[in-house]
């Protein structure tokens, strides 16, 4: 099953500037595995050394945080849209 995954601006440099991808999988972990399989450089941005999803990159199924669902084992349907939303800090001088 393919599911639509939205790639945020800060991570698009690792996905050849693509803002949305159609990825294979029926759970979040399968979809993210497909994602990092295709774009290996994303791996260190999504997972820590222990292979756990990083705490400053949130994953949503439609508008729900997977932390409020079944974490990475959250199952998805073809009509779902997956969002990856990393922490950004910009706002002031940026000098």
């Amino acid at each position, binding site marked *: 099953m393919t599911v639509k995954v939205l790639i*945020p*601006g*800060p991570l698009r*440099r690792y996905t050849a500037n693509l*803002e949305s991808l159609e990825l294979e999988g029926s759970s979040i972990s399968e979809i993210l595995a497909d994602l990092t399989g295709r774009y290996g*450089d994303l791996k*260190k*941005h999504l997972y820590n050394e222990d292979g756990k999803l*990083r*705490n*400053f990159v*949130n994953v*949503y199924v439609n*508008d*729900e*945080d997977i*932390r*409020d669902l079944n974490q990475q084992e959250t199952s998805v349907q073809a009509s779902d849209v997956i*969002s990856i*939303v*990393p*922490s*950004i*800090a*910009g*706002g*002031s*001088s*940026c*000098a």
Partner: protein
Amino acid sequence: MLNPDIEKIELSKEEYERYSRHLILPEVGVEGQKKLKAASILCVGTGGLGAPLTMYLAAAGVGRIGLVDFDVVDASNLQRQIIHGTSWIGKPKIDSAEHRLKDINPYVEIVRYPVRLSSENALEIFKDYDIIIDGTDNFPTRYLVNDACVLLDKPNVYGSIFRFDGQATVFHYEDGPCYRCLYPEPPPPGLVPSCSEGGVLGILPGIIGVIQATEAVKIILGAGRTLKGRLLLYDALNMSFRELKLRKNPECPVCGTHPTVTSLIDYEEFCGIPQAKAEEEAAKATMGEITATELKQLLDQKADVVVIDVRNPDEFATTRIPGTTLVPLPTIEQGEGIEKIRSLVNGSDLVVHCRSGMRSAKALGILQTAGITGKNLKGGIHAWADEVDPSMPKV
């Protein structure tokens, strides 16, 4: 104060006239305008986000506006920080902001805090305000603002930007989630490029800052539905707004049921900044440095030296040192850049540079583990502009 005794607040004839478009709006009216006058808002930072939002808050008649900023106005700020003008370059931002806000509305009180916000002063500064607005640009200060707001039980109106993307929400309002509920930890330093490396669309902070101002005004008026529990995402390139659900984490270390953070901590430490600095210093100590003047001499002598620029292609296209080759840091991190440099060097001496020397130090560290040694250009291309080519713009 929020929910003040309306009977005790007076508006002058001039104020009635100034705020007439608010007064005829049922959601504001005289009562709402008096609430605005009684309210106090602290804005941390008068940069990209703070600039537009404080201008609108002053115009709207928020009675007391506090500003925290210790920076000076730089020419590169003016592309987006519209509160500051060209004649204020080199002067404190807080002076420039106060001057502009008083010109917009002399009926509001501006309180200045020309300091760097810290764990030592944050609670003392925040305690006198109804609402705190986070207009900062770095992770340590964002976690500091969040924790101080939770500890003092004040709403934290959040906005953040990167390139063409923005986020906004209201944290810790009416028992809603806080910043740590959204992001329990910051990214390690260096993983996410800063605005000075990554750039930002100048208009973007205008959009996000004005959303923050809108939320603050709604909290004061008690009108409408705030962004509490909703993370608003803005994508300027696609001109799209989306929202995601944001829930309070019962295990949140600061706002959860059993908080472990009960006083302000060392946020630099929390964000891994001292460790990253120490690693950087250690790496610098083992690799050689060369000054821009020395490099110029080598190039003039036609010495056998390869100069690699590890900035991004967009930066390279803007300014470059003549005769250098572009190998962006991400390609070195990914490995292909290492092999490219290995074949370019091929027995010659190697000098690596970036904008100011940070990314090139990182590149040299990676190259060193791959068996390639070289020198870092001290101060990067900015030092070249200072010492060798004053006509080169420092971008």
